[in-house]
């Protein structure tokens, strides 16, 4: 725990008048938020220079607790909104907080094109395998055979691997971590924030109250330990047999490229046109 007891004080970054918060006991989203704020603290980015854009769902509600410039926008659209904000205000460090439904289902098209453009935004997607806020419906990342309110006989759809999608679409940096490894998650987020380009970080979160309860996955301690046993920092397994979701998920920084950042490329293109 020594790293957790560093000079970082999460209260410096929270709107405490908003407490008590709405998260269920044991929910992983709070830990993800902690890791994000910790990363920001270590990078010493001033609160006034940050802008958080979030969509709809449990993930989308996190912004309201952050003592910064926060935008809680429409379902699935935080990346579209953030694209405009970042282009208008390159001086702001724009961070998107989204969920698996927000980012991969209703907002999937925006994710693909945000990766392709490579604008300097950091996107933290909280993957809890379910639509928690609406009561627990199946999402594009719900594991096989899991029960949700709209898969009462078990989930029969293949699972989306968001990191592979982001990498293939050209994201500047792609990473994944679980909430149990908070310092590691903080480090992946730091890499994302430091990278000059579009960074996509998937956080394997746990929805204890809705998804966990429905599938009898135990309490949050049990859920995160199960998660830990299903990730490998050293690579994918079974990718041939199960192309959509391997038995083991890779964690850490998984992809990186140095393609030109969108806004810089735009400015350079315009400058050369004006001179030419």
């Amino acid at each position, binding site marked *: 725990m020594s790293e957790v007891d560093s000079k970082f004080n999460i209260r410096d970054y929270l709107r405490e008048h*908003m407490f008590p918060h709405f998260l269920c006991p044991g929910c992983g989203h709070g830990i993800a938020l902690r890791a994000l704020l910790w990363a920001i603290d270590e990078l010493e980015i001033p*609160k*006034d*220079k940050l*802008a958080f*854009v979030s969509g709809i769902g449990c993930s989308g509600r996190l*912004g*309201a607790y952050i*003592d*910064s*410039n*926060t*935008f*809680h*926008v*429409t379902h699935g*659209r935080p*990346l*579209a*909104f*953030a*694209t*405009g*904000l*970042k*282009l*208008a*205000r390159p*001086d*702001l460090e724009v961070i998107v907080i989204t969920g698996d439904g927000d980012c991969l289902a209703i907002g999937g*098209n*925006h994710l*693909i*094109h945000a990766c392709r453009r490579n604008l300097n935004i950091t996107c933290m997607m909280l993957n809890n395998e379910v639509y928690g806020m609406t009561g627990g419906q199946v999402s594009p990342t719900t594991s096989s055979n899991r029960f949700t309110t709209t898969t009462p006989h078990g989930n029969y759809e293949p699972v989306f691997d968001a990191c592979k999608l982001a990498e293939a679409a050209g994201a500047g940096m792609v990473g994944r971590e679980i909430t149990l490894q908070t310092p590691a998650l903080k480090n992946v987020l730091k890499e994302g924030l430091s990278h000059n380009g579009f960074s996509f970080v998937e956080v394997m979160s746990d929805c204890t109250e809705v998804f966990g309860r429905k599938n009898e996955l135990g309490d949050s301690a049990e859920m995160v330990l199960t998660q830990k046993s299903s990730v490998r920092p050293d690579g994918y397994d079974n990718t041939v047999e199960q192309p959509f979701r391997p038995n083991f998920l890779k964690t850490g920084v998984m992809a990186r490229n140095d393609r030109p950042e969108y806004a810089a490329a*735009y400015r350079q293109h*315009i400058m050369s*046109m*004006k001179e030419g």
Partner: protein
Amino acid sequence: MSDLSEPRLLNLEGNHACALGAIAAGCRFYAGYPITPSSEIAERMSKELPGVDGIFIQMEDEIASMGAILGASMGGMKVMTATSGPGFSLKQENLGYAAGAEIPCVVVNVMRGGPSTGLPTRPAQGDIMQARWGTHGDHPIIVITPASVPEIYEQTIRAFNLAETLRVPVIILYDEAIGHLRETVEIKDSNSIEINNRIWASEVTDSFQPYAAGEDKIPEMVRPGDGFRTHTTGLTHAPDGFPTQDPELVSQYMDRLLGKLGHHGDLVEGYETIEVEDAELLVVSYGITSRAARRAIKLARAEGIKVGMFRPITLWPFPAEAFKEIIAPIKNVLVPEMNAGQLIEEIERYRPEGCDIEGLNRIDGETITPEQILDRIRELAANE
């Protein structure tokens, strides 16, 4: 890129006049998606914006372009997007966000025939009600219907002035025929154009509330990075910007939101009248159709028929007060529209006793002709 600062006369098509009007108004961010018959607006913006240090981006879809302009507007830029029927439908959710979170933006809808994919290259006036009520819930919105290319230029500038000062989305609504019509536009010296800007909050205090407004009902805007660190949400919010379900705060918010345009009625209102002083018969007409009506009225007057015209330029909120006075002595009202009868529903609300109101509708992708209107005027006059 053209030199946009030099005053002169330009022969422009409507969609290009819209783009140049936007730039003259200070628009420096445009996000769009290709759609007939509005694409020329995006094309002209992509050509001109870099020259004025603006940003053009073609987004992945209609929804994204609407989202992007809202993000850029909250960042501090004057913003616009343009579309047509199907795209206008897709933009509705984020338009509601703009209305609720009070984010200035201008959205152009160049109307084509509907429903659905409809008649992409043919004119129509079928989105009159959608422009007012397309997004869910009670909300404020301004809709402007120019009737000529020079008016598109002027009204686009006015649309930005209204959006910025009243913190409201403004729709510029015209049809394919005007969008592709060429007319002469007077490009004025930039110093002689009236430009209104949003008011930025400047004093960071502990008690600052981003959605608290004074008598004018318009809260000052908060620029991210200025130290306010406020919250913006599409959830119903209290003056402090945070979500609330307290019935009293919800009412306060809705009352202010829905009352603000009425409070600034003088700014918002816009209409033209022709020969209404002694009129017994009134034509209510807007956009391309009003051009045919103007000609028909001239010809009817030459025949001694006492007919006039009321032309809303600001279509929504409808200029009700002015219209009530004008319609009071009228016996017959004719509402020609290139739809199955949309604005006529609004006109019915102001019907004085003993007044007959009827429509003249065309939904075949063609414009209404002066002859069609003149024939009906003659019939109505003969029946008197």
